[in-house]
């Protein structure tokens, strides 16, 4: 495993575009902390985001993993191109001739995905912990340890999303088209939802079906945290909306995400095995 990871890191570390994207990604992850600096002070209106409760334990786990997962697109570009470039440079063929098996090739990419996701999770954990200690109203250990399931959910969300990227990279062999294919797939999920809800079944059932589709399943892992904020809830109550919904990480969503991840990696392997290079 270390050998395969070592091979893939060797390929990435000399690639300037990948290096820059990785750097931007981790810089942005760290800069979540800068949200704390958002402060409006216009005469009577005083607005300091950090004091709105967004950095309160345990809510911070939810908020930060959600915001951090928006940045995954930067790493997606790295991952898709590390797969697609092997095709355009024909280095995949050379790797196999040099004695890498097709299974090892896919695994070296998958291990890299896991490594990136693990480091991202560790980053978000550290940044959140530090921000929490600075801004949270409660710092009791029992409260800090609450809702920690957002971290494994974040990890799985990244692994699943990047595995999808790997699969598309190997399927269409061109980085730009692979990213395009993912956008098209996102639209297709909406179309399936719309057609089902409009013609076939109730909107509620259509949503349940959509929950099984990969991008929807991955986004369900961490639900939007905005309407969970006390401040937002209060406003909503005033205008007569009830926003109480379940924000926790659902086991079913986890299972669906894991199933898709396995499927994407297996399909990548099957595709590579079947193809003549």
């Amino acid at each position, binding site marked *: 495993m270390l*050998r395969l990871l*070592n*091979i893939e890191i*060797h*390929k990435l570390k*000399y*690639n*300037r575009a990948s290096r820059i994207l990785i750097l931007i990604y981790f810089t942005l992850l760290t800069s979540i902390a800068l949200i704390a600096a958002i402060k409006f002070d216009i005469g009577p209106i005083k607005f300091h985001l950090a004091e709105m409760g967004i950095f309160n334990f345990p809510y911070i786990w939810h908020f930060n993993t959600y915001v951090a997962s928006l940045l995954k697109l930067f790493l997606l570009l790295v991952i898709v191109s590390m797969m697609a470039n092997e095709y355009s*440079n*024909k*280095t995949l*063929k*050379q*790797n*196999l*001739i*040099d*004695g*890498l*098996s*097709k299974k*090892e090739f896919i695994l070296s990419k998958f291990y890299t995905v896991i490594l990136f996701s693990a480091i991202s999770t560790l980053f978000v954990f550290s940044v959140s912990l530090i921000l929490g200690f600075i801004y949270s109203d409660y710092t009791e250990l029992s409260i800090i340890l609450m809702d920690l399931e957002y971290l494994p959910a974040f990890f799985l969300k990244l692994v699943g999303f990047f595995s999808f990227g790997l699969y598309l990279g190997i399927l269409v062999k061109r980085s730009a088209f692979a990213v395009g294919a993912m956008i098209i797939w996102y639209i297709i999920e909406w179309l399936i939802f719309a057609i089902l809800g409009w013609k076939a079944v109730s909107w509620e059932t259509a949503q349940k079906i959509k929950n099984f589709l990969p991008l929807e399943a991955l986004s369900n892992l961490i639900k939007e945290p905005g309407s969970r904020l006390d401040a937002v809830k209060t406003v909503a109550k005033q205008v007569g909306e009830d926003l109480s919904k379940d924000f926790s990480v659902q086991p079913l969503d986890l299972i669906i995400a894991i199933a898709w991840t396995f499927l994407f990696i297996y399909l990548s392997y099957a595709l590579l*095995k*079947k193809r*003549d*290079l």
Partner: protein
Amino acid sequence: METIISLNKLNKKFGAIHAVNNLSFDIKKGNVYGILGPNGSGKSTTLGIILNVVNKTSGSFSWFDGSLSTHQALKKVGAIIERPNFYPYMTAAQNLDLVCKIKEVDRSNIDEKLKIVNLYERRNSKFKTFSLGMKQRLAIASALLNNPEILILDEPTNGLDPQGIHEIRKIIKDIAATGTTILLASHLLDEVEKVCTHVVVIREGVKLYSGRVDELTASHGLFELKVEDDSEKLIKLLSKFEGISSIKNDEDIIIATLSKPVTATEINSYLFQNGVLLSHLVKRKPSLEQQFLSLTNNKN
């Protein structure tokens, strides 16, 4: 003698095209093999199959008597297929370093192999700045990193200028001289004739010949003859001569193929006695090219 690779009734179909047809042959340690065939005869496909990049349709092949799986065996092999494929953004040395990691061999060989192919001075230049000849030489260095049991070369001089061709050939000859087993696919016959001891001839995926190069070219040879005026008479006389199996008129030179040993003196005195004076008489061994053409044409 130790068998390095053995092909058994290998087949590959691309849709309706039968690219490799029931191909069987063995590669033994210590020999230099040439796979000969016109373009599109299935040479590269065959190599692709044994190198794990093309899936076979049926049949089998085994590396080192089946003692190793294909990808493990490939770590003991050095191979270059058509175009050199490396990471354009890495330097020569970084690319070779990666190959060492894949093949699980020590990195200490890198400098030595770069020197063999005269790229040591350019080791820190990016691959994308290399000329085709340099890229091909880097590919050879990469194939030599693990001191391979067998070196497989597919059209190594394709697309190179005369200078580049000469350099690559010299490197191949030097490697062959060290006793390394080589499998060289080419459609350039003089290339094969110069370095190979054994040859496999294939056409449209079918094996036409496999054996030693000198057996393929072995025969009693042929005469090239020329007269100034009456070539009709010459042909008539030759056809009566015992030991000449066929006569061919190639422009104004007449080629007589022998079926038994005949010396130039014998034929000259026979013709002189019958009143034919030759202006040109040469006895030669058939070249691999002529043998190859007659082999591949016989199938038509």
